[in-house]
């Protein structure tokens, strides 16, 4: 091997071959994945309210404290009851907004008078811990307009959503980022908002 330094050694040749195979494999896999999914865009996690059983795991399993899931009021479905079953404790005897009458442990639902006998219910998301108590109450006795949703302004979009892993109903799934919310199937459509984004 006098001219070994000039020639390609066997080891260098095999190394280059293996390297080339790695590059080809990597490039091939990447191209296949990209070609198939180029048009689909990103994905985010969301709770399907029709599958959700309001078990309360959302409050405890999210990597964030408090959880990135929040109670959301789907206003096309309701939001006007005098005695909201998501707001009042079933054992409440007095229907005013005293803490002892409220179902929400953190007082996150705000009740505002609209006109006799209607009240508006809005969620203060800073206070909501996603325990799902109101969701259960509303669904059992009311219209089911209170739903749990993952809020994308809080969610860090983990690669494996801890809520999804802990969900007993398999209700959390990846949805396209272009349609990041899931309203109940029987929820009437809302007109698009001013920014033109569909809800």
């Amino acid at each position, binding site marked *: 091997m006098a001219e070994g330094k000039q020639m390609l050694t066997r080891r260098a040749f095999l190394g280059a071959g*293996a*390297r080339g195979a*790695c590059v080809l494999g*990597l490039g091939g*896999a*990447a191209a*296949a*994945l990209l070609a*198939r*999914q180029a048009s*689909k865009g*990103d*994905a*985010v996690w969301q709770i399907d*309210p029709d599958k*959700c*059983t*309001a*078990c309360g*795991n959302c409050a405890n399993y999210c*990597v*964030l404290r408090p959880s990135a899931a929040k109670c*959301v009021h*789907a206003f*096309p479905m*309701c939001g*006007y*009851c005098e005695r909201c079953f998501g707001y009042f404790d*079933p054992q409440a005897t007095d229907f005013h907004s005293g803490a002892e009458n409220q179902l929400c442990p953190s007082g996150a639902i705000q009740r505002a008078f*609209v*006109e006799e*006998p*209607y009240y508006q219910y809005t*969620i203060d*998301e800073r206070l909501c811990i996603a325990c799902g108590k109101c969701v*259960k109450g509303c*669904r*059992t*006795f*009311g*219209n089911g307009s209170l739903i749990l949703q993952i809020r*994308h*302004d809080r969610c*860090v*979009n*983990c*690669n*494996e959503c*801890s809520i999804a*892993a802990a969900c*007993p*109903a*398999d209700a959390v799934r990846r949805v396209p*980022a272009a349609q990041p*919310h899931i*309203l*109940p199937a*029987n929820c009437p459509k*809302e007109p698009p908002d001013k920014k033109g*984004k569909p809800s």
Partner: protein
Amino acid sequence: MTFLRRAIAVPLLACALAGAAPAEERFPPPQFETAYQRPRTTAPWPRADWREYVDLAMLVSTLTLASYLALRARRRGGMFALMLFCLAYFGFYRQGCVCPIGAIQNVSRGIADGGFVVPVTVVAFFCLPLAFTLLFGRTFCAGVCPLGAIQDLVILKPLKVPAWVEHSLGLLAWVYLGGAVLLAAAGSAFIICRYDPFVGLFRLSAEWTMLVMGGSLLLVGAFVPRPYCRFLCPYGALLRVTSLLSRRHATVTPDECIRCRLCEDSCPFGAILKPTEPLAPHAGLQGKRLLAGLILLLPVLAAGGAWLGGLASGAMSRADYTVLLADRVRLDQAGLVQGDDQYINAFRVMKLTPGELYDLSRGVQDRFRRWGRVFGGFLGVVIGLKLLRLSVRRTRQDYAPNRSTCLSCGRCFAYCPIERKRRGTPCGRTNA
């Protein structure tokens, strides 16, 4: 007021039994007399796509810089600064997501399931560090990976790990990789993310199990440097192979090695190989016999692995939701579930009979059994190849980094007198 009376008339018991019955419109919207408009449902939007391309640009530039620092500039100081920056950016600012380690799972799931979305950035996060490693060695581990960086910071007193421990524990990473690919491809779980030890620190919020795991790894890491990288990281397992094939690689010395032994103990990861001792007589023949035996052992290991994989697949399939639910329902049918069980409650609203669920679960378990055997066989081959690689003797005259385990962190550079001469600091100052 009629809806109020109707509400009271609702048989409470029936509703309570129905539990989480699907929502229905019990109280249709009234005609408001005032001009009241119901508010819009609040709908915050996810972070804009373009910011992911910022992450991507950041990854490319940090990888380039890390490779430059390891191979061209040969600066540990610069590498350390880059590592801190990446810890701050990819770790604390981007909160550890998405990382190349986790991207393994998205890519496997994407390949196994055509409907699964793998964003361009995730594909790039998976491919780019591998591509850079094929060219320049594991510069990603040294300068860019936030999980590596946080372990690098806590190295206090590096202990020498015996070679057999190092090699055996290194196999764990392959087990982790195989298991993660299997579970991700089956669509059951992303275990790399679930058991990521440091992401809780990056988010400054985690379950206590996660914090205990991360904390104990850091504690071990004070004495056994970078334990996650060396013994567990599934992406590290891939990088070890690609780094072995890398086109160029960082070297201890910038020029010719003078075998001064000064660098011998400089590597906290034990990744510097010493020059080989001269061969004992007859050792060559013995070595060849050993090699032949190991090659013959390879199919045996693969078959044994496949058999064990088949056995373990039952336990692994429990990570799948359908299998888990079916097991719960089976227990419930046998009257063994007491009290209120979340899974049973969820199953009751699913409009699925136990028989149908069992069939679904059996399908998943069959798939797991098939792929569990492949997984076991793969591990057998990995162990066989590891033994082969340990038995192949390479003659070495110089001190050189072990290409597969060297992270190109650059700690050894300043120990080399040739390097000192190159920098014009022959003695005294050792750093940077």
